[in-house]
C-alpha cells in the first residue's frame, strides 16, 4: 500500500470523527503555542542577556572580583603580568544625592579619568559628554543623563556647575557637577549603569568614602585575546582571593543557567503536550473500539498487522500535523505582538528555527507514543471476533 493511501484513509477517518478530531487539534494548537512562547521568551531573554554580557565584557576583558577587596599592590601585580595591557580598578559606594529639592539614591564610582572613557565605551571622553566638560579632578563629578533630567516632566534636575550633596553612611560632602554623561542603553562595562550613576576622581573618592584605599573590582584588558584563558590562570595564581573570569566563562555560566530556565519553562508548558497526548490516547482508543468491525474487514481483505497499526498512527499524525501547522502560524503571529515589559522595552518571544523544529517534533513524537498502545491493540485484534463485534 502506498504511503499516500495510508494518509488518504487516515484523513477520511479524521473527517468522520470531526468533533473529537477538532478537539484534539485545538489541544495540540494550545500546547504548541504555550511551548513555543515559553521557549521563545526564554530565548529572547537569553539573547538579551548575552548581548548585555558581550557589552559588559568584550572578548579582551577579564573580570577580577575579590571576595573582600583588592589592594593597590594587587592592581600593580596584575598590571605587571604578561599579556596584560592595563588594569582598571573600580570602586563604588551607595550615597544619597541631593540637588536642591531633588534627592535620589545613586552609586558613586571612584575612577581615573583616563579609564572612564573605557567604561563609557568611547575613544575620547568628550564623546561621552552630553553637556559640560569631562574634568574629573578634586570634588568635580560627572553625573548620568537620567539624573540630570526628568523625562516625564521634561525638567532639568541638575545644572552644570551646580553644587550637590553626596550623603554617604559615614561621610557627607559637597561636590560640583562639571559634566553630564550620555546614557547608554542597558548596563555597560562592569555592569555600571552610566546613565544613573555619579563618577568622581578616585583619589577624592578614597579620601571621602574608602580610607583603606581598596577596590571592589578590577577589569583587566589583555593584549592577545587568544591567550585570555592562560592570563586568567596567571591572575588566579597571583590573586587567589578573587574570582577571575572572562566573557567566555560568563557566557558559559549564563548559558547553563538559561538552559535550566528553558528546560523548566519547557517542562511546565510541556504539561499541555502531555495532556494532549492523553487526549490522543483516549481518542484513538475510542476510535479502535468504534472501528472494531472495520478492522476485522481490513484483516479479511488482507491487511497485515503493521499496516493496520500504521493506519492508526497515520491518523494521529494527520491530527497532529494539522494542529502543529495551525499552532506554528499562531505562534509566529503572536510572537510579533505579545511580550514581557522589561528595562523599558517589550521583550518579544524569539521563535528560532530550533524552537519551531522542537514544537513540531515533540507533539508528533508524543502523539505517536500515545497512539502506539491503541494502534497495537487494533493490529492484534482477532479478525473473526472483530467482525462479530456489536
Amino acid at each position, binding site marked *: *500500500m*502506498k504511503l499516500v493511501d495510508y494518509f488518504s484513509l487516515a484523513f477520511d477517518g479524521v473527517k468522520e470523527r470531526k468533533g473529537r478530531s477538532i478537539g484534539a487539534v485545538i489541544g495540540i494548537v494550545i500546547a504548541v503555542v504555550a511551548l513555543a512562547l515559553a521557549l521563545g521568551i526564554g530565548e529572547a531573554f537569553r539573547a538579551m542577556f548575552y548581548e548585555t554580557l558581550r557589552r559588559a565584557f568584550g572578548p579582551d576583558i577579564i573580570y577580577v572580583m575579590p571576595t573582600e577587596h583588592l589592594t593597590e599592590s594587587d592592581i600593580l601585580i596584575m598590571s605587571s603580568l604578561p599579556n596584560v595591557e592595563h588594569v582598571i580598578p573600580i570602586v563604588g559606594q551607595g550615597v544619597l544625592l541631593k540637588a536642591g529639592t531633588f534627592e535620589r539614591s545613586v552609586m558613586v564610582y571612584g575612577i581615573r579619568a583616563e579609564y572612564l572613557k573605557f567604561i563609557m565605551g568611547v575613544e575620547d571622553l568628550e564623546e561621552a559628554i552630553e553637556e559640560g566638560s569631562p574634568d574629573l579632578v578634586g570634588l568635580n563629578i560627572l553625573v548620568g543623563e537620567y539624573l540630570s533630567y526628568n523625562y516625564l516632566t521634561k525638567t532639568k534636575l541638575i545644572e552644570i556647575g551646580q553644587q550637590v550633596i553626596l550623603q554617604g553612611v559615614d561621610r557627607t560632602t559637597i561636590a560640583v557637577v562639571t559634566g553630564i554623561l550620555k546614557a547608554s542603553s542597558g548596563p555597560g562595562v562592569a555592569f555600571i549603569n552610566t546613565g544613573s550613576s555619579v563618577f568622581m576622581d578616585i583619589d577624592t573618592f578614597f579620601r571621602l568614602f574608602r580610607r583603606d584605599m581598596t577596590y571592589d573590582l578590577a577589569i583587566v584588558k589583555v593584549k592577545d585575546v587568544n591567550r585570555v584563558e592562560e592570563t586568567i590562570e596567571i591572575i588566579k595564581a597571583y590573586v587567589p582571593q578573587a574570582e577571575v573570569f572572562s566573557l567566555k566563562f560568563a557566557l558559559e555560566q549564563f548559558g547553563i543557567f538559561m538552559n535550566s530556565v528553558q528546560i523548566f519553562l519547557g517542562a511546565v508548558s510541556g504539561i499541555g503536550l502531555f495532556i494532549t497526548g492523553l487526549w490522543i490516547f483516549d481518542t484513538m482508543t475510542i476510535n479502535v473500539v468504534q472501528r472494531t468491525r472495520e478492522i476485522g474487514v*481490513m484483516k479479511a*481483505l488482507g491487511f497485515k498487522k*503493521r*499496516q493496520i497499526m500504521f493506519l492508526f498512527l497515520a491518523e494521529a499524525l494527520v491530527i497532529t500535523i494539522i494542529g502543529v501547522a495551525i499552532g506554528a502560524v499562531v505562534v509566529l503571529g503572536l510572537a510579533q505582538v505579545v511580550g514581557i515589559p522589561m528595562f523599558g522595552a517589550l521583550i518579544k518571544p524569539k521563535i528560532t528555527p530550533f524552537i519551531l523544529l522542537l514544537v513540531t517534533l515533540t507533539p508528533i513524537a508524543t502523539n505517536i507514543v500515545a497512539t502506539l498502545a491503541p494502534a497495537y491493540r487494533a493490529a492484534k485484534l482477532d479478525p473473526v471476533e472483530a*467482525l462479530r463485534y456489536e
Partner: protein
Amino acid sequence: MSSIINVVNVTKVYKMGEAEVWALKEVSLEVADREFIAIVGPSGSGKSTLLYVIGGLIRPTSGKVYINGVDITTMNDDKLSEFRHENIGFVFQMYHLIPRMTALKNVMLPLKLRGLSGREARRRALEALKLVGLEHRANHRPTQLSGGEQQRVAIARAIVTEPKIILADEPTGNVDRKSALQIMDLFTRLNRELGVTIVMVTHNLELVRYCRRAARLLDGRIVRIYTSSEYRKLAEDMTRGV
C-alpha cells in the same frame, strides 16, 4: 476436476475458562476448482467456523487446510494476510462496508492495499461495480444504499482483486427475498462465467439449489455431502435434524 480447497481432519476447540467448546471435529472437505458449494446446518453447528478456517481467519486446533495445494495452517500472520488478499474474497451477512466511504472507495480499498495507482484502482473498481449492476451508485455511501445494494457492493469488493475463491457467510441473511435471488444469480454468474469457486454458508435451503453440492454440518461434524439431486433428502434431514 482438481480440488482448490482441501480441508483435512480439521478440529477447532475454543477454551472458555476451564471448559472446552468443540466447534469443529475432524472435518474433512474437498472443494473442486470452479465449484459452487453450500455449507448448511443449524445455528452453532460450526458452518461459519469452517468457512473462516478455510479463509485463514481462524487457525484450526489441528488438521490441515490446503488452498490450491498450499498448506495455509503453517503460514505466519503476514504470509496468511498476503495469501488471503491474493486468493480469497469474503462476503459477510452484514456486508461490512466502511460507512464513511462511498461504494467506489469501498471497492477500491483492496486495490489500494495492492498498491495500484488511484486511476487504475478506480477503473477496476468501476468495472466490478458494473459487474454487480451498481456503477450508477458508485458515489453513494452505504447508508444511501438498500441492503441488497450494499451486499452487491460487498461482492464487488470481494471480486475486484479477481480471487480464485469467494467465501460467503450467509450473504442473503440480511436482505429481502428479491435481493437474495439477485445475489444468488450474481454468484451463479461469477461461478459460471468467471470460474470463481464459491463456498457459501447458509441456513436457507431455498438457496442451496444454486449450488452443485451442499455439505451439512451438525455439532461440528460434516454429517453428509449432498449433490444437487439429493436436495429433497437434505431438506428432509434438516427438518428431522439427523
